[in-house]
């Protein structure tokens, strides 16, 4: 019985909502997995903020071209119809509302749509990259994350405690237990694992989950 989704399964679920022809930015790390699970017959164009549209998977080891990398500085390949552009154009695509979806990781998400995903506090070297830009402008800003931290603490909260990446920016959260929309400053439950009761889900969520309509079963294939 499924007690929680794996990262691959969360990525699969997020990929099902990307429509044919969508322009998509996937954050560095875990969100990059979403690209593997594009439903057959749909073509999404992936944007990497260092200056490529329509890049594909990594080349075989030894065939890397280090001028052809993604924002995570990993080697990629090109698909037919790819293009290159400089950084000001790249972030015009981001902030200018031209991307359909941005899918990002999170340390914390708040019910008002605030996101914290760039800094765990004042220790060490601060580094932001494109995180604060990517949360603005895409038509949908979705988060994929485990429902709780490694210590079992909720990541979906009333308000973020860590330094913010953006204010009121997240529209949907795909977690290891549920799919939750952010509407009018509230978490609205859309899907949950069928093995989990609403009370059990609420117990590991740091803010009230509103049930405003039917809650579908979150069913994901074994991956």
């Amino acid at each position: 019985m499924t007690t929680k989704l794996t990262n691959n399964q969360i990525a699969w679920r997020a990929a099902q909502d990307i429509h044919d022809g969508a322009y998509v930015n996937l954050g560095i790390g875990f969100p990059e997995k979403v690209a593997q699970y594009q439903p057959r017959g749909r073509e999404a164009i992936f944007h990497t903020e260092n200056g490529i549209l329509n890049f594909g998977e990594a080349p075989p080891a030894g065939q890397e071209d280090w001028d052809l990398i993604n924002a995570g500085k990993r080697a990629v390949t090109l698909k037919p119809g790819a293009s290159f552009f400089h950084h000001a154009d790249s972030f015009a695509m981001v902030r200018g509302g031209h991307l359909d979806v941005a899918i990002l990781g999170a340390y914390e998400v708040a019910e008002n749509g605030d996101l914290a995903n760039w800094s765990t506090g004042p220790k060490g070297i601060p580094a932001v990259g494109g995180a604060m830009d990517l949360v603005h402008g895409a038509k949908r800003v979705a988060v994929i994350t485990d429902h709780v931290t490694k210590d079992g603490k909720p990541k979906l909260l009333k308000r973020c405690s860590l330094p913010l990446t953006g204010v009121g920016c997240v529209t949907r959260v795909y977690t290891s237990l549920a799919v939750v929309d952010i509407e009018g400053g509230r978490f609205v439950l859309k899907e949950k694992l069928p093995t989990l009761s609403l009370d059990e889900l609420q117990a590991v969520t740091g803010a009230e989950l509103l049930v405003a309509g039917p809650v579908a079963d979150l069913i994901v294939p074994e991956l």
Partner: protein
Amino acid sequence: MDKSVADLATAVAGIEDGMTVMIGGFGGAGAPIELIHALIDRYRASGHPKDLTIVNNNAGNGHVGLAALIETGMVRKLICSFPRSADPVVFTDLYLAGKIELELVPQGTLAERIRAGGAGIPAFYTPSSYGTDLAKGKPVAEFDGRSYVQERWLKADVALVKAETADTHGNLTFRAAARNFNPLMCMASKEAVVQATRIVPAGVIDPENVVTPGIFVQKVVEVAHPQQEEDLNRANAVYPGAV
């Protein structure tokens, strides 16, 4: 008109103590390794230039290129978006010891500040960083019901840039994602110094294919077989190696 110069030493001769220098590249892609190393050579021979302010997306990786420049002790301040890498030990140690200053800027804001510097726009408003720690102390204004942060242009004395093909007028093409910040930095600097894999006579590059027009470029130097930071780091290279 011929903007080509004979060698790397001549190309970097105009950089003086205390200058702001933009260095192109995102990670290793588009990083002008040979120009950076020529600047290190000059410092090791003469003690100058020092107290530089460097603008780059990152803070270097390993012990070559920008990391080597920082390690040599020539850099007073870094303006960047992501000072982490696979091997960021050079910057990390100096930063934690309080020996180098950091101005952290969101990546898109960094690009737009540089573009604005080159375009004569002293300030602009962006949604990026609104409501976050990086917006502290900056003016905020509301437009059509949304809040935005005011950011200022960023300009430099010199830009060190990597291109694929340059002509003698300074028209440039770039290679793949090595374009990144390079065209913007040419615009925002008083002197854009470009290393190109080949320099061709004016007229060889189709005007339709010029990415950076020569008006933004002051010097070009040919580096026929440029090194890649990633390859150097995989070989554990250190610049300027043991003497």
